[in-house]
């Protein structure tokens, strides 16, 4: 059976890597943002004791992993479910787990690629200096963020229309990133946004990454971890219910 999982993941990776609107945008946009705000603009800004390039490495890292994951699951599943391909797979002997594991493999791979590229830019051009342990921990925490956001992507993939899904993902992904303090530090945001932020998984993900790079955290780290795990579980549950409901649609 492990052969099937491996094959499914390999083909899903090839499929998504060749799909330029996925591979170019999930890698390109976070890098562009980071180069602009974290490298070019950074010397003119400061954020407490931490260099801006280091602060934004944590939050844009979180932003990249969210994007790679939400598009792989949300847009990918919505199209395959809505246009009949998932039915073909479900009629075949493919183990259901292989389908989701392959989407997770794509999210982890692309997440890891963007985070690694961000790290290289941060170290070479952003002047970010951290102990080796912090780099490693940050990399791991960011890439692992694909797991809870995969669950959120599954819910989007279960409800979004096949053709409108990429737009739907953007309408959730971009505001969630902005309001969760991933584009600009949460402290410089208006009070109203600072009050909404704790309701968003993106905020907790960002706070975990910031705690690793040495930014004094809002709230406690265990609380952020629990919140993110909670979001992951709730969305996984919703996706589960949505999938079983989806089976009975009308056909001629």
């Amino acid at each position, binding site marked *: 059976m492990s052969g099937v999982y491996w094959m499914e993941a390999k083909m899903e990776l090839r499929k998504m890597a060749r799909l330029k609107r996925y591979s170019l945008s999930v890698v390109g946009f976070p890098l562009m943002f980071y180069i602009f705000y974290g490298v070019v603009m950074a010397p003119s800004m400061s954020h407490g004791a931490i260099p801006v390039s280091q602060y934004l490495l944590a939050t844009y890292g979180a932003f990249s992993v969210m994007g790679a994951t939400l598009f792989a699951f949300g847009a990918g599943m919505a199209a395959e479910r809505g246009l*009949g391909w998932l039915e*073909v797979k479900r*009629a075949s002997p493919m183990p259901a787990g292989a389908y989701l594991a392959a989407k997770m493999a794509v999210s982890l791979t692309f997440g890891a690629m963007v985070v690694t590229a961000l790290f290289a830019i941060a170290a070479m051009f952003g002047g970010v200096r951290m102990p080796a342990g912090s780099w490693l921990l940050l990399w791991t925490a960011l890439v692992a963020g694909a797991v809870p956001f995969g669950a959120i992507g599954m819910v989007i993939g279960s409800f979004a229309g096949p053709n409108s899904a990429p737009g739907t993902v953007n309408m959730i992904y971009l505001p969630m990133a902005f309001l969760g303090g991933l584009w600009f530090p949460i402290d410089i945001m208006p009070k109203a946004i600072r009050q909404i932020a704790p309701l968003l998984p993106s905020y907790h993900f960002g706070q975990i990454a910031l705690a690793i790079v040495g930014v004094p955290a809002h709230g406690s780290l265990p609380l952020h971890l629990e919140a993110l795990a909670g979001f992951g579980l709730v969305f996984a549950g919703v996706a589960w219910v949505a999938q079983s409901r989806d089976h009975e649609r009308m056909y001629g």
Partner: protein
Amino acid sequence: MPVAELCGVTKRYGEVQALRGVDLSIVRGELLALLGPNGAGKTTAVRILLGLSEPTAGEARVFGQHPASQEAKVRRGALLQVAKVPETLKVREHIELFSSYYRKPLPVAETIAAAGLGGIENRLFGDLSGGQRQRVLFALAICGNPDLLFLDEPTVGLDVESRRTLWAHIRAFVKRGGSVLLTTHYLEEADALAHRVAVIDRGRIAAEGTPAEIKAQTGTSGLEDAFLAIMHENRDAAAEVLL
């Protein structure tokens, strides 16, 4: 024992009765065509036999098993109506992936030959013509070396040449000993391929037999006339019941 059967299957979607007590069985080595107009219940019958949908009443079995069971799945293949297939995988990659789902798949080269895909196996799916795309879906249906094939309107929208090519591959599958349930609204297709035809209309089996029997039954020379006669008769009968 039939390789697949529906016993008194009813399927209701809310107010709509898609199937009303359908009995249908496919025996080993035969090609059964399920013939009917759009909306007659053909796809619903196939979906139930593939385990994608549960009957409201009655029972469906494939090789004596529940249609959604793994034992049933590994012994059958399916070509379904699908609006979009992932376009950034190559023909060969699609086949390799589906082959990996089965215990004893055909060698990939053999599947490529049996579906007439030689020479285009390294093209991306998105670069193929309509006829080539249907042949890839046919390849995915047969790559697991199944005993039973479900083909849901496999030649819809194809030009004559592509349709004839696919027919040849379907015939070759039957010749190797496979059984097939084919749904179609092309009478010519049922006439050309089927050992037996079941005519379905508004969720009921209206007639069943060899193409010749069906023609004889209605005193018509072509299957098309027979089909129209059955549809007409069936509507009259339904009208009587309603009155």
